[in-house]
């Protein structure tokens, strides 16, 4: 990083870009960690500065920095580092009401720093706001830094801030997962019960994996072994303690190394839900049909067969439903190439 102290050269710009990229990455990690954490972490009162998507600019600015811009960059970086620190503190345990605080502080800092130039002030305030939780702020900042790197002094200041920002972000991301694991999901008891009932009846090896999908409203998710699926499906519907009488959704996903069929069930009897995934190979994609259990699976399985080429043995009428009957290939497969007679 110390080589940035020299006059602006192409290498320096590249270095600045690298720093920016590293920072963006750190910010992304932090954000992902935040996304995984409880919603209250991101739940902030309204009135935040919005990140204006249309204003997106290329991450590395080539234009010459004017004195005002330099000041703006410095002020922005300062304010952002401060905001990032505040954000980290907030992430460390204080509730979301720390955010307006952080914002105010960041804005004040920016104002003090850039009092000379009104434009710089505005920019700093904007960046300070954006920089708190989102990586949009990081992008902005990266930009500001790239501009600042053109001038040695500004670059040095920005660098310090960048380091601080990275530190604070990694700090946040290392803290959040532990905070996330601390409270078990409200649906954990449901999941435990499903797993217990199913293992008692079908043995441990029938369930490959079971977890709470925290990204999807904490739905209990089971990964069922393909060969056990039909028996378990029948059981899911008929077992009085489970009674998943409603198939909400059924579709397939092509993961390139495997296929998965995803089911979302709901029980109108007990008012609980369950997501089930069944894996299959791409070459001989085949998952037992559940049309005999839930009639609503009929067209969904036909659609999955049509678009992804997954076979559903036991389906009474597994023919194409969206594409014409003579269509060649399965369009939603990742390696699908449209067949053209003329070529």
């Amino acid at each position: 990083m110390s080589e940035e102290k020299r006059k602006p050269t192409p290498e320096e710009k590249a270095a600045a870009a690298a720093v920016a990229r590293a920072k963006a990455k750190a910010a992304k990690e932090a954000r992902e960690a935040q996304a995984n954490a409880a919603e209250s972490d991101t739940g902030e009162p309204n009135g935040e500065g919005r990140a204006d998507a249309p204003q997106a600019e290329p991450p590395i600015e080539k234009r010459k920095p004017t004195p005002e811009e330099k000041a703006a960059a410095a002020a922005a970086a300062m304010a952002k580092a401060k905001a990032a620190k505040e954000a980290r503190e907030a992430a460390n345990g204080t509730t979301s009401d720390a955010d307006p605080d952080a914002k105010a502080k960041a804005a004040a800092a920016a104002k003090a720093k850039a009092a000379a130039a009104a434009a710089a002030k505005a920019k700093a305030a904007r960046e300070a706001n954006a920089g708190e939780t989102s990586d949009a702020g990081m992008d902005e900042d990266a930009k500001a830094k790239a501009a600042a790197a053109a001038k040695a002094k500004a670059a040095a200041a920005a660098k310090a801030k960048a380091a601080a920002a990275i530190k604070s972000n990694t700090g946040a991301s290392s803290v959040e997962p532990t905070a996330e694991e601390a409270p078990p999901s409200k649906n954990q008891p449901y999941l435990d019960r499903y797993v217990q009932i199913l293992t008692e009846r079908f043995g441990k090896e029938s369930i490959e994996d079971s977890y709470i999908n925290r990204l999807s409203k904490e739905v209990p998710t089971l990964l069922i072994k393909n060969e056990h699926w039909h028996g378990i499906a029948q059981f899911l519907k008929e077992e009085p303690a489970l009674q998943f009488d409603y198939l909400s959704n059924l579709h397939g996903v092509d993961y390139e190394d495997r296929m998965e069929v995803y089911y979302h069930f709901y029980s109108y009897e007990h008012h609980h839900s369950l997501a089930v995934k069944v894996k299959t190979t791409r070459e001989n994609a085949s998952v037992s049909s559940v049309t005999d259990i839930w009639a609503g699976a009929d067209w969904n399985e036909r659609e999955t067969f049509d678009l992804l080429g997954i076979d559903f043995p036991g389906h009474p009428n597994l023919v194409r439903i969206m594409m014409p009957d003579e269509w060649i290939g399965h369009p939603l497969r990742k390696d699908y190439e449209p067949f053209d007679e003329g070529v």
Partner: protein
Amino acid sequence: MPTPFSTGIRTEEMVLNIGPQHPSTHGVFRLVVKIDGETIKEAVPVMGYLHRGTEKLAENLTYTQIIPYTDRIDYLSSMTNNYVLCHAVETLMGLSIPEKAEFLRVIVMEMNRIASHLVWWGTYLLDIGAIGPFLYAFRDRETIINLFNELSGARLTYNYMRIGGVKWDAPPGWIEKAKEFVQYLKSELPNYHVLVSGNEIFQSRITGIGTYSRQDALDHSLSGVMLRCTGENWDIRKNEPYSIYDRFEFDVPVATEGDCLSRYHLRLQEIEQSIRILEQALDQFPEEGEVMGKVPKVIRPPVGEVYVRIEAPRGELGVYIASQGKDKPWRFKLRRPSFVNLQILPKLLEGVNMSNMVAILGSIDIVVGEVDA
């Protein structure tokens, strides 16, 4: 249903093709029926004429770019389609939405629900032979469309919501106009009943046809009005509240007959409930505040998958997204209520008189854009 006259005249089965270009199918939907005399023996729906491959297209679009495509899925209620995509991405990323944006979302979604039900009301009656109601329904729907036009710049494909909020704030005076419309519709709705609901010929036309049980409905994954007409008290707005629906008081209309008439009444009652929600939402509408939350410039949800479902005018509208941490979805799947609800049609048509076909098909309330995706 046995043939009404046992005259001993020999009949034989014939195959009749209906559609894809047929006014009663509300789009390019085709039905191949095997009839014996006037009794339907078997009905086979054929679809895909309007398949545009939205799910495939979405895999090559950024999340924001998918929003206009959702407008074109169920083009009678684009707002709920917009919402379900944004809701899925927001759930995946754990974003919070400013209060004002949530209010605007609920207001436009409920207005769109009314507009959608009005279209259904008009066209359904058109299907079974009443020309007049259609004109009234479209007259009132026009006001909603104009309000949306003022808000988003489009009459049908609004592209109004964004991940993190909504694109446009309500222009000055818009809320007042919306309030005025809600009061107008409230006073106008009884006329709908006077015009049609009380008509004895109409009632006997659709009472007791297209009937199925609650068990049938659950087996066939029916949702929305198609499920509630069999006695299941279930509305995702109420039972799994999303957005700010838990702040408003409203009832879930439920019927137990499971026939076409009960579905007719439920849709009209849902308009009343939407009016109730709108009254509260418009009264509590915050004048101040942002309409966009803080979102990253590039939407990159974390690696993982999400499935959310909401209550659209036609039933349970769901979105599944498998994300690989990129700015584009790995897999995007829409659970379309029209498509799923239509599955019960062959069962409903079996053994009924040919003249009831249109009345039963119409009562399911399909939008072919949504059936075919």
